């Protein structure tokens, strides 16, 4: 005889429920929003990395120029 939970498993394991109307549209628009947010995060991250790098380069240039001027 089958155990009660075997019956639950058999019947519910691959059970499909009717999706709400407009489900696909809401899924794709949500996915698009997530992708835009991820892109924005990536670009903020690149800006956050680029600004200190640029500042360091600029500082190095100023220091080198200062050194050259003092040497002259």
């Amino acid at each position, binding site marked *: *005889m*089958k*155990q*009660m*939970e075997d*019956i*639950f*498993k058999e*019947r*519910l*394991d*691959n*059970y*499909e*429920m*009717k*999706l*709400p109307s407009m*489900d*696909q549209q*809401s*899924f794709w628009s*949500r*996915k698009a929003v*997530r992708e835009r947010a991820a892109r924005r995060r990536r670009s903020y991250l690149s800006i956050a990395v680029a600004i200190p790098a640029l500042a360091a380069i600029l500082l190095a240039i100023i220091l080198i120029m200062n050194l050259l001027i003092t040497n002259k």
Partner: protein
Amino acid sequence: MRTEQELARLCTSGDREAQGELYAQYASRLYALCYRYVADRDDAQDLMHDAMIKAMDSFSSFTYSGDGSLFAWLRRLTVNVVIDRLRQMSKLRLVPIDMAMEPGNPDADDDVADDIPAQALLDMVAALPSVRRTVFNMYCIDGFSHKEIADAINITEKGSASILAKARTQLKSAVNDYLKRTGR
């Protein structure tokens, strides 16, 4: 219709059409799975969407290992998304209360549940308290071990087994009530 392997390969490369096919093939099953855990259609839809997006973004971690492996992978991923959300919503903090509750003592004939429509069985699972529902789903339907359940929802293995016993008792009682109501 594409084979699972082909579908997985195309989804890994980000093919939009294949992603649409993946959604069409598995969304309603994953929606039912989420509903089994959260017992609310809006939350279930929300979680199913999150799981699908996560799956589409992490296809590189999927390895095809025969027919059914794609759904098995999607199922694991979805259960993890659901458990994370339940944890965030603190719905799994009721464990000590649940463990203190006395189980009932009805004893339904195991075989009769076979006649009950799947949606009615799903509603019975959905009517369980959150922790019992989670443990019953993870152990009896989605094939997790007590150890995995204990790790996932921060309880002991013994606690998981005890909660499962109570869920079983409650479900037997629900089956009995259903049979009485419908005159079977």
